[in-house]
């Protein structure tokens, strides 16, 4: 299981700070998240998914991942 953390608009859309997920790839995780949290549908495609601190593409494996961050577009300054 992978610990998935949500921030900002993603936190608001899921109503969760974090949860444990069992998907084995980032692509599967994205699909599973939209299925379980319909509020994410409009924003997840704009979010970066960081796996253990690195930006990865949807084919990346989550088999050994500990921490996934779902990051909406940054808006600092």
């Amino acid at each position: 299981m992978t610990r998935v953390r949500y921030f900002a608009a993603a936190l608001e859309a899921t109503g969760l700070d974090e949860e444990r997920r069992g998907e084995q790839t980032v692509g599967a995780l994205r699909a599973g998240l939209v299925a379980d949290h319909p509020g994410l549908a409009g924003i997840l495609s704009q979010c970066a998914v960081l796996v253990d601190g690195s930006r990865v593409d949807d084919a990346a494996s989550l088999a050994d991942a500990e921490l996934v961050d779902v990051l909406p577009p940054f808006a600092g300054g």
Partner: protein
Amino acid sequence: MHAGAAAGPGAGAVRLARVETVPLDLAAHLAAVEDDTAGAISTFIGRVRDHDPHASAPVVALEYSAHPDASAALRGIAERAAAGTRAVVAVSHRVGTLQVGDLAVVIAVAAPHRDEAFTVCRAVIETIKLELPVWKRQHAADGSAQWQGLGG
């Protein structure tokens, strides 16, 4: 620590880089970059303004939140901006709910000459905009609220 005699070319340094929950203080940033080698100090202040093209009514507040690693990311941004220069940098980004006129970002950059001070200061704020893991939600006078940076 502020002695400049040993600081040769390329000795750029970051003296302050922090995500803060309390009001930002320009004077503290100027004090942090105090250095006898500095012939120029450039500052930047990012403020909450009362309007935005995406807002349906006048803006009354911005609600900032940050990733837990944001302070480290801010330090990395400042270090990269100062690398290869003689600039010294102090930078802070505020989080929490800010009202119109409150300071969201304060940057002070001291350098031997003005060009380096301006260039490094500009690089820090532009990179903050692109890379710092901070988010803001804009609250308007009609009660609506919008996450910034999300299209559509």
